[in-house]
């Protein structure tokens, strides 16, 4: 399969000391949705800025759509679309004027401009507000306009840099639905950075987990989850000093892949968690260890991130379980709708 993006040893060091991106290498196939997943400061935006010729690298090579990014930045800019994490539309112009400006700058054939703009405004549901100044737009409308501006020239590769940052769950779900529809229509390659695990899970064909400027794991969401060895049962001993004894008792239960202590809990990896829970409880009981709680988690990218970086996902600390559940449900719903 043709590669849309090929990156070799890409690095960016600021002020000679701060390594924002530390020699990453990866390849994205044409038509693929590829996710860069990591917490704030992991190097995601720096990578996108380099791949879109906005930032010069300290080292490395990058080919996007067959063009050397750093040798021919002008050609790259014609072929790619970019949606920034912050709003960049001109608030003194209307939505339509923003799109007209972008169309002229990207060299969209004049006879196609009006039709493309009307089509995008309609598809992204901002047609009614097309002739209003964008300073009057809601956050969701601004995001959809950003997407329209990013794809007005039908780019072959679309970069989305945390495009749903600040949107409510409904807004996020809607945004991804539009992206999936556009992918289906135009077959464009999508490179997306996000720190929302559920989004990466729902949207991306493959994911690279980036942390402190390094790629720590790559694979499809299901491959990454499979590497966890199945489900994760979390066991909480009633007494903290019994954690070691509990770890030993649980490790001997047939079917257990591994037992890892973490913050007073024991994370037990196993292929079929629901079948193993009674045996785990029984093993602890036999060893005279009281339990304060047992929970079963299906493999998620949260777990994947924890597995490969050794810590919880930092940005999600403030998010309630309800928020996350709502978001996951809506993203999956959107994903399902677009697939149908």
């Amino acid at each position, binding site marked *: 399969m043709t590669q849309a993006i090929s990156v070799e040893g890409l690095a960016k060091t600021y002020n000679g000391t701060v390594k924002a991106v530390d020699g990453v290498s990866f390849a994205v196939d044409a038509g693929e949705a590829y996710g860069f997943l990591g917490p704030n400061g992991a190097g995601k935006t720096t990578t996108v800025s380099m791949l879109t010729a*906005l930032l*010069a690298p300290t080292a490395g090579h990058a080919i996007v759509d067959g063009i050397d990014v750093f040798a021919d930045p*002008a050609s790259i*800019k014609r072929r790619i679309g970019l949606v920034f994490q912050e709003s*960049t539309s*001109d608030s*003194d112009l209307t939505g339509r004027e923003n799109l007209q*400006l972008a169309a002229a700058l990207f060299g969209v054939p004049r006879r196609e401009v009006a039709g493309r703009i009307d089509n995008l405004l309609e598809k992204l549901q901002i047609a009614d507000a097309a002739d209003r100044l964008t300073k009057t737009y809601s956050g969701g409308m601004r995001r959809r306009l950003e997407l329209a501006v990013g794809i007005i020239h039908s780019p072959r590769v679309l970069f989305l840099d945390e495009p749903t940052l600040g949107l409510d769950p409904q807004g996020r779900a809607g945004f991804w639905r539009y992206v999936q529809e556009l992918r289906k229509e135009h077959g464009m390659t999508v490179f997306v950075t996000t720190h929302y695990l559920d989004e990466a899970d729902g949207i991306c064909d493959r994911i690279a987990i980036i942390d402190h400027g390094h790629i720590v794991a790559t694979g499809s969401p299901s491959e990454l989850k499979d590497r966890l060895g199945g489900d994760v049962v979390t066991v909480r001993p009633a007494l903290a000093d019994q954690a070691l004894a509990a770890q030993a008792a649980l490790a001997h239960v047939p079917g257990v892949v591994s037992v890892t202590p973490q913050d007073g809990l024991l994370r037990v990896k196993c292929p079929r968690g629901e079948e193993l829970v009674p045996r785990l409880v029984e093993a602890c009981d036999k060893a005279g260890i009281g339990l304060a709680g047992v929970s079963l988690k299906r493999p998620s990218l949260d777990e994947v991130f924890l597995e490969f970086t050794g810590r919880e996902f930092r940005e999600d600390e403030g998010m309630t379980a309800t928020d996350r559940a709502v978001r996951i449900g809506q993203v999956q719903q959107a994903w399902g709708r677009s697939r149908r």
Partner: protein
Amino acid sequence: MMRELSALTRRELLRLARNPQALVTALLLPILYLLLFGQAFNLGALASGPGGQAALILSIRGAPTYFSYFSAGMAGFVAVTATLFIGANVIFDRLFGVLKRTSATPATATSIFGSRLIAGSIQPIGLAFLVLGLSLLLGKLGLSGLQVTAALTPVGAVEILLAVVILSLMFASLFLAIGFTIEQPQSYFAVVNAINLPVLLTSAALYPWGTMPAWFRNVASFNPITLAVTVIRENLFAGATSFYPYGPAVYLLGLLGWAVAMIVLAILLARRALAPQK
């Protein structure tokens, strides 16, 4: 190139049209000068008798009144007050992501700069003529006003227009150069204020030529505002003898030199600012 230049210029003009407060602010200072300073600073009252009057006319290089001399100076000064916002707009566009968005398109740095230069120069051209018109009107209202004593020829009118256009281009380039270099609005306005008044006060926009010491005249002779207002004064005021050593074309050439230097400097700084960050 032409398509992106015209699209970006249209954007700049729409933005200026939708923010008319910038126009009002640009006009405020020159109008205050005309209504207060120009009315109160009545040098004519000091020139008593035919001898005194002749000395005053010599001092203001053939203008019929000090106000007439001064109002031509204000038409030049408005090029400064009306262009300084164009550099601030670069900084705000950078802060609000608009410049980043434009940098992500194939638009060249020259087009991005050029569009701002064109849009930024149109406004002061209109305002300069508004200042001259207002000065004429003040005279009709019985106040000190502009008196035109020369028969304005088509060539003279073109020379005045060129002086205003080139002066506007020069200051728009200067402020764009600063805007592309400085990142914070407060720093920009501090630098602009440090330039604004010294440029005015080292020009011949306000002072009678005859009252300046020789060294000051040497400094003022090279000031771009002096060069532009000299072209305006030479064409608006005529006496039995010429009070200027050179014709308007020479001053226009000097002004053009300033403008070219500023445009080149601003393009270089804009290119540096819009290049991929190191």
